[in-house]
């Protein structure tokens, strides 16, 4: 019942994820952070099989950091997304595949462009202006088809995001509580209060 969505705008990517950690009928935690900063200008939100999610996310985080230590230059969003996709694709036909779905948002400092990638547990990758994972996608994608503006200012983008969250709150059977929202732009990664 996890929900994540993301959208790009003029020089930024916003990623929002719910903060609920639940098992069956029990909500164990209401302040879980499901969005990791992989680098100075790269965010990744994750959802899926409990355990796999954090294991995979930390593995990715460490390896992206290792790349930066080894080669000094951070990976560009498209390269990072491609590498991460490859990890999932390799895992798919292994003994125990990771069942983790991701949204990767990054700001490419070389071209000053925001990029967003949707990657599922099979290693399917889509490079799109807005995306969602989980049941929330059924509510949110059509809203974003209508209201998303790739040249929107940050304020406009956040308004669109609020619309999406309101829709999920209204129509998803499970109450997901607060959403954690993080932004990546030319100044890097930061969390914001909606």
């Amino acid at each position: 019942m996890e929900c994540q969505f993301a959208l790009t705008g003029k020089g930024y990517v916003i990623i929002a994820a719910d903060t609920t950690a639940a098992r069956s009928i029990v909500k164990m935690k209401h302040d879980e952070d499901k969005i990791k900063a992989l680098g100075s200008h790269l965010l990744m939100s994750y959802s899926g099989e409990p355990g796999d999610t954090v294991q995979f996310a930390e593995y990715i985080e460490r390896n992206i950091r290792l790349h930066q230590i080894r080669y000094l230059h951070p990976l560009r969003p498209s390269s990072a997304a491609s590498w991460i996709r490859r990890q999932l694709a390799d895992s798919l036909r292994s003994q125990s595949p990771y069942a983790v779905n991701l949204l990767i948002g990054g700001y490419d400092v070389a071209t000053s462009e925001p990029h967003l990638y949707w990657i599922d547990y099979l290693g399917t990758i889509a490079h799109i202006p807005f995306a969602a994972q989980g049941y929330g996608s059924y509510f949110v994608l059509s809203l974003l088809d209508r209201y998303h503006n790739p040249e929107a200012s940050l304020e406009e983008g956040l308004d669109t995001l609020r619309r999406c969250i309101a829709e999920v709150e209204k129509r998803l059977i499970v109450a997901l509580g607060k959403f954690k929202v993080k932004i990546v732009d030319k100044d890097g990664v930061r969390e914001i209060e909606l």
Partner: protein
Amino acid sequence: MSIMELNGGSVVAMVGKNCVAIASDMRLGNQALTVATNFEKIFPVTERIYLGMAGLATDVATLRERFRFRVNMYTIKEEREIEPETFAHLVSSTLYERRFGPYFIEPVVAGLTSPSKGSQPFIAAADVIGCLNFAKDFVVCGTASPELFGIAEGLWEPDLEPEELFETISQTLMNAIDRDAFSGWGAVVHVITPEKVITRTLKGRMD
């Protein structure tokens, strides 16, 4: 629901007079939900050979990378560009390597032989384990392949000039994907001639 129908998508290739064309739709779905409308399934292998793959999207990406590696190694070792028929056999052997745990894609190869061999048009298709089909007229694959077969059979004729071939393949693809729920959301057509490759994007029923 079959694994080949999870993401949806279709590819078709046709032979013309000293040219070939290859076209695909742009949809990436997750069963009924459309995730992306810019998912390219056709990739240039060399300037004169294009490879299209329909089926499971993760394998499309994985194989695109594997073929890029294998073709680069071929070019380095042989010090020449790979021929379309050779590349088709490379596709076949790459798929057969996974005979008992296959990649879930159906590839389509379209290209022209090198100028020294006369720039002859070439198309081929294969199944998931690499059984090659060297058709003389057209090849189809993907979720709309029954529809594509029907229309291509009706519209195709030999010795179509590049412009006519573009029209024929476009009509074939557009009408076939309109009848298939899992394909659509636009199309891209590449027409490969000895001088250049013309790529056009088509807007059809965006549903």
